[in-house]
């Protein structure tokens, strides 16, 4: 579903991402761990075609994201660290607007159900987003991914700053999406969430994917040791 071949991004002499080879299949949740500046967000930005690769390629469902960005964006959903919506619109209006952009038209009641299923309190559905917490906005993002029937989820530190309850709810929603065959690439600092939710884990350092393994093959303590080893070297 998601694939990179020697994907590289350089800014002058600085290499932000170096020859990344990665494959994420349907139903996989690939968690990218690493310090700030390790290349996690760069990878996601390349899949979104916000930036163009210096060399190599990235494909979604076999389609090159650089050559056909509009087509690949039709099947993906993106939730950044801090999902910003239009503060003067309600959660429902935001969802309606973004669904419309993706060519998905739902009745207001259906959108309300989607928001509710994504964990947003009923009272807040018709309130302006300026009154929402970060967790509530992330839930609207999940509702959007569901409404758009995205086949691919790109998550850039989505649980950063969320309280444990909201973080846990978010993970449950990801697992629901996983069960539906959605391929997920999630950049995160949260080792626990990566081990708990991810099917695969990669550790990045200075633009290089230094480790890649299935999460079932390591326990949390080993993961932590491995992560710290790379961070300290």
């Amino acid at each position: 579903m998601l694939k990179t071949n020697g994907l590289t991004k350089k800014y002058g002499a600085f290499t932000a991402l170096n020859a990344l080879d990665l494959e994420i299949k349907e139903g996989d949740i690939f968690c990218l761990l690493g310090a700030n500046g390790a290349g996690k967000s760069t990878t996601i930005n390349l899949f979104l075609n916000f930036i163009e690769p210096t060399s190599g390629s990235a494909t979604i469902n076999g389609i090159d994201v650089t050559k056909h960005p509009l087509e690949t964006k039709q099947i993906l959903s993106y939730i950044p660290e801090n999902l910003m919506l239009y503060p003067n619109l309600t959660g429902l209006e935001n969802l309606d607007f973004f669904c419309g952009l993706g060519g998905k038209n739902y009745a207001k009641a259906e959108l309300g159900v989607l928001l509710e299923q994504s964990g947003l309190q009923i009272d807040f559905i018709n309130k302006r987003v300026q009154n929402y917490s970060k967790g509530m906005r992330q839930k609207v993002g999940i509702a959007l991914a569901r409404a758009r029937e995205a086949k691919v989820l790109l998550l850039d530190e989505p649980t950063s700053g969320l309280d444990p309850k909201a973080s846990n709810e978010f993970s449950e929603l990801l697992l629901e999406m996983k069960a539906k065959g959605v391929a997920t690439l999630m950049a995160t600092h949260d080792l626990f969430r990566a081990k708990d939710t991810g099917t695969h884990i990669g550790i990045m350092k200075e633009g290089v994917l230094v480790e890649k393994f299935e999460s079932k093959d390591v326990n949390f303590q080993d993961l932590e040791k491995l992560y710290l080893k790379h961070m300290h070297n």
Partner: protein
Amino acid sequence: MKTYILIAKKEIKIALREKLVLALSSIILVLLGISLFTGVISYQQQQKAITKAQDEKRKEWLEQGDKHPHIAAHFGTFIFKPKTVLSLFDFGLDTYTGTSVYLEAHYQHQFMFRPAQDHNSMIRFGELSSALVLQILMPLLIIFLAYASFTKEKERGTLRLLNSQGVTLTSIAWGKVMAYFIILLTILTPFILGILLLSYWLKTPDTITDLGMRIGLLGTTYMAYIFLFVVLSVLVSLKSSVSRNALLTLLTCWILFTIIIPKTMANFGESLYPLPSMKIYKEGILKDKENGLDGKTPKAVRMAKLEKELLKKYKVDSVQQLPFNFEGVSMQAGEEYGDKVYDVHWGRLLNIFNKQNKLGSYVSLFNPYMALRNISMGLSATDLSASVDFQKKVENYRRIFIKKMNNDMAQNSNYGEFYEYSVGLDMWKSVEDFKYKTPSIYSTLKKYVLEFVSLFSWIILLILLLNYITRKTKLNNG
């Protein structure tokens, strides 16, 4: 539904919920209302005063009693410049050109009673007309409405989310342009319709030609101007990294367009093509009348030559033997020579005005505000060319009127007979009242080709630029 329509709907919804936009729109609406109200009041008052004065002067002319036609020619009459109904929208140069002129034999008097003379310094700086609100304040509303159109999305992070939905920057930009244009049209359209209704309701004797077409073109031109500023504002916002930069850039453009360039060009035009002072202008006419245009044929020589030619033509020895009153013929000859001198001097003055105007037209290619201002005055018939046209028609009327008096004197009175000869009401009635109609819209449009080219080029250029930049821009920082 098309993406840009969805974006436009969202933008309109957000704009309506933002208090600043509503407050600014209300201010513009109130200013438009006040300016239109004062425009109507001023138009009605002035039109009423002009009609009353014109009627009184006509009555005076008809009731002046029996007298010699040349005395009547000096008794003269007043002509009042009628207001065009569209002057309630755009005062143009009406405030600075005179409203009435005294017509008599031998002299081309200057227009008197410029409204600006009676105003205090603040009003002289620029009266609040509806045209001024739309030309200068409306762009400010557009700037405040659209300066953050992209920067806010970048700052908030919603632009990345929008783009991740597979929406192109081009669609986002045109959605925003469409939204702001629709919001502004909801202000402009009822106002233009109001002008249309008021114009037909207030229209007094048809001074202005092609009224419907003029209003239609005014509406279209103002829409084009608004569209242009919307695209410019969205474009600047797209290219700016933060809202503050976008606002500063747009306000700089606004100040350049509406204040600095027009004032600088007016001063530059005045320095490049200076006008003679009124004193020098009048002295020049007087001197050429006295000494002849070549400076070698004074009035006495010209009269002696005329006398000699007529005596020879009619084979008589003295002017008393001529079959007409020589005094009437010589007066008309003197009048016609004076007209010739006036045409030369007036022509020179017009030439300078035209050069200054032409310079303004060329500069308008780089300044859409100046282009719109000129077109607006032209279509409202309150521009310089309308004023010149009126002066020409008044002068033509004066010449016909004086010629009638002189011809009567030549044909019906005897040489040396002055106080003994008189004419009365029939003669006064034969001098028709002055009626004025503005030039046709076609002749007005011909004068503003460069201004129309300017607006059209600006729009095309900005559309192409917006399309080009949205296609080339990547969201790595957005």
